[in-house]
């Protein structure tokens, strides 16, 4: 157990940490949601990850994504994995730079217990739910975290036993509703929280 993990034991019991550490996590998308979900989960003690993203870091991502200026141009999977290892050097990250489609999606996340849908586009969100919804894995999806208004609350919507959607489920990202750090990070944190609660109370 490294120094970081010893530190976790101030807040978690050995049994809780064991439950967290044996959980295999998949994160589909390393943007606003995914990079922040990864941050929250590694800090909570998770250490076995499969992450997928096809993009490189751009300056306009830095308004909400967990990257820094000197990482502009780097692959998001690499910048995310680097960040995770800065928190816990013993974290295991399988990283794939690819775009998920109906043709290749079956190749990923097969051994994962928990999968996070963290893409920005609706097509990929739909693909993730259609593919993994009945897989028995815990599936946590994000939908609706754009804009500045807090009139539409970010909710946790339990679709069925193993499927949760986090977000306001109404505010589409667009010119009037840009993706900004506060609500995007709040949504990502709540997505991570859904998994933590389920894993620790099972």
């Amino acid at each position: 157990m490294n120094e970081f993990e010893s530190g976790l034991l101030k807040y978690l019991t050995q049994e809780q940490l064991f439950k967290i550490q044996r959980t295999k996590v998949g994160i589909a998308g390393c943007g606003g949601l995914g990079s922040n979900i990864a941050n929250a989960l590694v800090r909570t003690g998770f250490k076995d990850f499969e992450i997928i993203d096809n993009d490189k870091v751009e300056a306009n991502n830095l308004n909400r994504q967990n990257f820094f200026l000197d990482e502009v141009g780097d692959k998001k999977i690499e910048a995310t994995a680097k960040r995770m290892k800065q928190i816990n050097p013993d974290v295991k990250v399988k990283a794939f730079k690819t775009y998920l489609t109906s043709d290749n999606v079956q190749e990923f996340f097969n051994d994962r217990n928990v999968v996070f849908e963290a893409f920005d586009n609706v097509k990929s969100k739909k693909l993730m739910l259609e593919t993994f919804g009945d897989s028995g894995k815990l599936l946590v999806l994000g939908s609706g975290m754009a804009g500045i208004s807090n009139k539409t609350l970010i909710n946790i919507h339990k679709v069925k036993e193993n499927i949760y959607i986090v977000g306001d489920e109404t505010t589409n990202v667009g010119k009037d509703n840009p993706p900004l750090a506060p609500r995007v990070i709040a949504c990502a944190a709540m997505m991570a929280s859904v998994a933590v609660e389920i894993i620790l109370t099972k």
Partner: protein
Amino acid sequence: MKLIINDEEKDIAGAISVKDVVDSMKLVPEKIVVELNHRILKTEEWKSSSVKDNDRIEIVSFVGGG
């Protein structure tokens, strides 16, 4: 046809398949996922999945951003 859609009873006239339900509710297929009697359907299954009275349909609708 009397269906339970997202826990509400709805009358969808003349619907034979899940695709008919989606069409008659004027939903955008690219943004939704449909579950029929607790099984999540792939979009290509909508046409061949027939519906009958009192079937339970759950429709999840996505918005973009992340």
